[in-house]
């Protein structure tokens, strides 16, 4: 690293040694020409996201609840139809 005049880090040998440890591996990626809005939308939709059901999958009760939820939903809808039409 280049030393500058009145460098506030000049006397901070330990800090500089720590900062020097932080190397970045630069991946190989090309320059892109102008991106269209469609490209941006596809990139956004294709980016990995957090699974909203992950917390449920981690516990036995959560998995059981996930399995039973569709049955409960169907039963609820059936009862609702009975109440409306009969």
């Amino acid at each position: 690293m280049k030393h500058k005049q009145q460098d506030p880090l000049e006397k901070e040998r330990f800090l500089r040694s720590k900062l020097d440890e932080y190397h970045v591996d630069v991946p190989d990626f090309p320059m892109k020409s102008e991106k269209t809005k469609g490209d941006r939308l596809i990139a956004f939709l294709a980016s990995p996201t957090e699974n909203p059901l992950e917390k449920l999958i981690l516990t036995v009760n959560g998995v059981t609840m996930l399995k039973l939820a569709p049955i409960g939903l169907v039963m609820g809808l059936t009862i609702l139809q009975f109440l409306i039409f009969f």
Partner: protein
Amino acid sequence: MARERREEELMTAYQAGDRDALDAIYWLMKDSLYSFLYRYTRDEQLSIDIVQDTFVKLQQHKHQYDPAMGKLKPYLFQIAYRLMVNKLNRRKKLKSFFPSLVPITKTSIDMADRMTIREAIGKLPPKQRAIILLYYYHDLPQEEIAVILEIPLGTVKSRLHHGIHRLKALLGGDFLEA
């Protein structure tokens, strides 16, 4: 100095229509821009996107750059910094409305000792972090950092000073020589 003059010459050539000059600028600046963005965000994909977007912006507004107004390196860093701040703000807003829609941050851990400095830099307030990174890793003078971040020179000096103290406190090492 010679490298800086070369960057400016390449930009002038690109403004005159030389497409190869743009490729040369890209290969000269890509690593430096990516390193700054990655150290700031610790997000590989976001850093790649911003480097690419910076060059898209450069292409869109190639005639706005005037060598008389400043060097090319701080000009590109300024574009990248603005894009990064906007993207991070947008991501923050998105996260508050739809927590599960925010892309997962991919960070790689190489060594335990690097973790310490990475974490310490990550824990710095964003405004101090940008200054420490630009000053130490990119050899930029405080005047150019002020231009990139669009803040007064005095603010750069004080944030650099506070950033160094904060970093030392976070690392908690032996600073007897300081």
